[in-house]
């Protein structure tokens, strides 16, 4: 494992932290629109299996991705703790279903490591790095990879 210093003048990056199957994950806060409780989700036929469906977000139709399915994690039922994090990436609004989400953390860039080969839990391409805050390890996600945006556009 090699620690790579990012930028010298870079100080803090803010991440919205959520939990998924025992692990903590983070997405850059500038992509996050809002965090919603789970409402009625309408299944969309003939879509990718990790697309859970669409929800009505105050009059907007927003697709929701089941991150557990996306990362091939075991299914679990939706609880009171479950949250949908609404992200806007490249003018496209998508929600991701998470087990729970309650905090925003500042992670110094110096505390973010490149992943290398340590992780086997999730799809490596969707990981931007690992953030270390105190004793916690936070898996920082590459939103574009999760949504397959690069594939779609290139």
């Amino acid at each position, binding site marked *: 494992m090699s620690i790579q210093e990012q930028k010298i003048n870079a100080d803090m990056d803010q991440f919205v932290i959520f939990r998924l199957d025992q692990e903590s994950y983070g997405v850059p806060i500038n992509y996050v629109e809002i965090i919603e409780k789970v409402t*009625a989700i309408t299944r*969309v036929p003939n879509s990718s299996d990790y697309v859970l469906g*669409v929800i009505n977000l105050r009059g907007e139709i927003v697709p929701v991705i089941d991150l557990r399915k996306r990362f091939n994690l075991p299914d679990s039922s939706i609880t009171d703790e479950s949250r949908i994090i609404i992200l806007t990436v490249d003018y496209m609004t998508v929600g991701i279903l998470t087990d729970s989400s309650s905090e925003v953390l500042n992670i110094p860039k110096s505390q973010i490591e490149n992943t290398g080969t340590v992780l086997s839990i999730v799809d490596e391409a969707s990981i931007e790095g690992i953030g270390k805050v105190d004793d916690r390890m936070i898996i920082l996600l590459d939103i574009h990879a999760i949504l397959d945006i690069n594939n779609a556009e290139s």
Partner: protein
Amino acid sequence: METSQYFDVFIDEAKEHLQKMNDILLILEKNPKDKQHLHELFRIAHTLKGMSGTMGFNYVLQLTHEMENLMDQVRNDIFSIDESVVDLLFECLDKLEQYVMNIESDQTEGDNISDNLIQELKTRVNGSENSNPIANETTQQDTNEGGFPSAFNADEYVRSMIKKAEDKDYNIFRLYICLNEKCMLKSARAYIVFSTLEQNCEIIYSDPSIEDIEDEKFDLCFELAVITQHSEVEISQQLNSISELDAVEIESINSKNVITKDEGEKDGFSTPALLEMDSNETSNSAKDEDQPKKARAGKTVRVDIERLDNLMNLVSELIIIKTRLEDAHQMTQEKSISDTTEQLERITTSLHDAVMKVRMVPIERVFNRFPRMVRDLSKELGKEINLIMTGEDTEVDRTVIDEIGDPLIHLIRNALDHGIEEPDTRIRNHKDKAGKLKLTAFPDGNNVVIEVEDDGKGIDTEKVKAKAIANGLISESQSQLMEDKELIQFLFHPGFSTADKISDVSGRGVGLDVVQTKIEHLGGEVEIESQPDKGSRFIIRLPLTLAIIQALLVNVESEKYAIPLNNIREISTIKEEQIRKVQGKEVVLFRQSTLPILRLSGILNVPPLEEKTQTDEYTVVIISHGDRTFGLVVDELIGQQEIVIKSLGKYLNGIRGIAGATILGNGTVSLIVDTNSLF
């Protein structure tokens, strides 16, 4: 001057003027002697020149200036309009359009692309000048020292005014006034001139217009025409008492030396009181004619389409809330609430209609570019074409206008290139030498129909058949069974072209499939009718509104789906035992014809409910599309409802079988079945 805020206005107006110019050029091409339109053309060039000058667009300014010079000579009968002149002016128009496009995208004119044209225009003007030295005059604004331009150009209104004044023995003077170059407050000085004159005269004409002068949109000189009882000397004395005037020239005019410009009531003068008092009858009639014109112009407002979209969204929200209220009401059954919801229903419906109407624009906006296109194409192809357009005033949604242009261009090019034969072939087949292309638009219930019809050779179904077999779309034996109508559908296949040789115009096979995709994207459909040697007709059917439709809500297992009502022919029930299997596909005999049966639950992979009552009777929604029909098995009908179509968003774009989503009264999302894609 800070002009950026005027960009939008400039571009809108410039486009309008260019379109007008296009129309007039087409008319002039047919009627080269038509002076009225020539004057109009001149005026447009002049207006464009002024506009672009103000905005600092010099290439446009120069080009329009030279165009003006050319037209001025034509106007003064120095030479006449022939094909080469029209072609030249068309070229200028193209360049102007290019500039305006550049301005729209980058706010600058881009590279100078009109130098050659300007040279050509100049050569023409100079060429004729040598033969006729009087023609050395250009337009009023540009001749600072030259005194009066060659002729006084007035519109019909001013002319009639002058006539009336003559009848009453008033003096009519034409004034040419130049301010001193050092004059600081030009508009204020001009105002003094006006107010001085108005003490004793009626000003009936001003170039530039009074508004422009007030806004200081003029150089140093302006031209006026006045009616007065005073003499030339008196007027001159009055004017000479005003300081900072460099030149004051007065000329007496009469109706004979006025050229009619016919440009409506450009300067907005009302009938001078002087005349009105004396000749009530005549001037009143003139006034009556002018006033409605003015009123109409004042009643339109340019609105950004985004604001309308926003308004439309709000109306959609309102409709959703209304549906929710209706749902709630059905549970409570209270009388007072039912009255209120009914009223709300009425209001939202009218509000929706009103907003829709605001968004509607005449299809003319799309059609008006076709005459030019057909003209150019017919020249290019060496075919003579008569273009007949009807129903240009048919209104369609603004979004349709933006999208429908390309498909129509495609169809027109197709008709001209493939449909209409060469002139000698036509004569041999005892047809008119000139081919006929008919473009028709008309509203039809909740749809708008646009037809592109030619009287050419029609579609060669044998050729289509051969091509379809060659492309491996069908087998030889299959082709034997197909009717002509079915065969024609192959034209919509990607990469399908029956043209033997590829021309610039069409034949690359990227055509009709694009047309169909685009039309279907707009929620419409295309049909082809064709008769050998009689011609073909493409019929485009588009929904009037794109955002809000009537739909049938159905239950499939535990899920709710909406089926657009305009595709539903009828609803019926069939028994399990009626269903037959033909080549692994389910069909029933329904009204003496076989009806393919599709199960919505299967198509949409709806997870089956665990405890399901077994029935041997199915509810079938019969969908028809053009002349194709199928039955869609659903579990239960919920009812008809007005729904607001929402897109599934970019992320879920292009899902098979789903056209979009809508929000139901209870706030949940229901998907809209795309019946088109189920065939």
